[in-house]
């Protein structure tokens, strides 16, 4: 599968060129356009039959859809263009055996070797991180496309790293994160507008997004006239 990211970074779409008999699994509603030679199959299962009803339901909790769309190429060079619902960037991550913990709704598409599952990130992290209670765990081998709100960038952490709540797109499972205050004093944290932050520890990669939907909504909401 050849992946080309176009129109970066504000309104990125991904052009996927598939080989004959190759399959890609996408988020429901992600397809923008496609060439001939592609058939679509919608199921709650991963490609190859694993998963099913419960996995579908657990995906709903993580902010994804119950169903998955599998695009199957019946000829060489079939082309599929996909994009996320909100404006923002897409990043291509190649999984090589490890796992990537993806914020609910940031998973866009993945190759057949990637298993999509739901993982729980702990009560306190769920309550205070501004993220979903459940996250999507992508593991296995293959291509993975993630989308963000705004631009996306990655940081390779070795030690400690702090990300503000709502800005995490994904992180490798070799990292652990806890919620903590942004500064020494709680008052300072609150007055500084940062409040609680996510503190990562360990070694691995984090993908962050430049904007977060709740802040955008809060900024926009006050300017809208009531209906």
């Amino acid at each position, binding site marked *: 599968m050849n992946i080309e990211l176009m129109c970066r970074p504000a309104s990125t779409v991904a052009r996927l060129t598939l080989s004959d008999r190759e399959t890609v699994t996408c988020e429901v509603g992600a397809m923008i356009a496609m060439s001939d030679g592609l058939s679509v199959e919608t199921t709650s299962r991963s490609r190859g039959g694993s998963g099913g009803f419960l996995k579908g339901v657990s995906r709903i909790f993580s902010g994804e859809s119950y169903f998955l769309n599998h695009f199957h190429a019946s000829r060489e060079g079939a082309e599929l263009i996909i994009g996320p619902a909100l404006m923002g960037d897409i990043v291509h991550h190649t999984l*090589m*055996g*490890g*796992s990537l*913990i993806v914020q609910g709704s940031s998973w866009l598409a993945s190759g057949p070797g990637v298993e999509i599952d739901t*993982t729980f*990130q702990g009560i306190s992290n769920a309550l205070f991180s501004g993220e979903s209670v459940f996250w999507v765990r992508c593991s296995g*081998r293959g291509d993975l496309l993630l989308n963000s709100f705004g631009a996306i960038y990655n940081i*390779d952490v070795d030690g400690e790293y702090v990300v503000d709540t709502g800005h995490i797109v994904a*992180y490798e*499972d*070799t*990292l*652990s*994160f806890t919620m903590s205050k942004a500064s020494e004093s709680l008052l300072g944290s609150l007055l500084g507008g940062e409040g609680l932050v996510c503190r990562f*520890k*360990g*070694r*691995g990669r984090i993908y962050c997004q430049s904007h977060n939907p709740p802040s955008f909504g809060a900024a926009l909401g006050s300017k809208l006239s009531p209906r």
Partner: protein
Amino acid sequence: MSTYLGGVFDDALPEGRAAATITVWRHGVEARLEAGKVYTIRSEVLRLERGGSTGRMLFIRGQDPRLTLFSEAPGLLEEIGTTSGLEARNAVATLTAEVAKTRRATLSLWLIAAAVLVVLGLVTPPLFRVAVDGAVGQLPLSLDVKLGDLASSEITSFGPAITDERAAGLATEILERLRPHLPPDIAALDLKITVIESAEVNAFALPGGRMAVLSGLLKRADDVNMVAAVFAHELMHVRHRHGIRALVQSAGVLALVSVVFGDATGIVALLAQGGVLATLTHYGREHESQADLDGVALTAAAGFDPAGMPAFFRKLKEIAPSSEVQEALSWMSSHPSHEERIAAIEALIPSLTRGEDPPMNHTLEAARAALRGE
């Protein structure tokens, strides 16, 4: 010997990391990359750590700070403990002890949190009751009257008031017979009763003493003792200020204080959500039991037969299933657990001294005739 899926962090690798297959040997832990490269961390320098997103990822380090092996595969730690050299076993033992300590700490935190919740659950209701009692005690009786006035316009929503002297006079006569046996401050209130045309078997008293009896009750009661029992029960809600208690529980004292100072808009808005009458006459089970027992004592003191109350309960139970008028159930539905209540009332009756029973000026039969339009 088993193999475990995992990975390697090595600064020399293109991405800094790669997937690897991990094998445990006596001399150390080995990680083999797909490309064929092999890393080995010897037993005697091996350091272990738990971490990662789930807290279950095992990190294996040696002397080289740039190299870390990792895996989340179950069984790996146990195999290092049994297969590797003595130093590695010590590392496993240290880590296992650390993990157990962390687990104990987490468990203790959860237990403390659970204990705090249980204690709060046990302590809060009695404390709340004490607070409500204290708050109601501080509020003047004039507040009850004001609240009753706010709700009084809703009384006529049940139906038109009946002015025929035979019916209205009977209700007033029963009320006046009960009045002298109430505490002086309640007896001094402007107690008034209105008969309302409605098939419902119901009666209610608003805070401050304004009462209403629905004509269904007069039609279905066997004698005046039954009617007096219901009146006495309702008067006890007024006496114990149950309406205001219900309000304090749902609205808070501040909202009531605003009524005292004349600004009733807040409380009216609040009550409008559920209906003023519904809020003021929605009593808890405890309040109902109190009204039963004090009410039956009141009927006896006023010279009515105290057996009228349990008899009325039985009557309601009896007529309700065959009755086509479902409203007949309404008085019962807001007054739960009949059998227990009847038993409690009947247990009290023998200890009561019945007062003088003077002949009545109005009769139930005449009132019924008036209600039938005769």
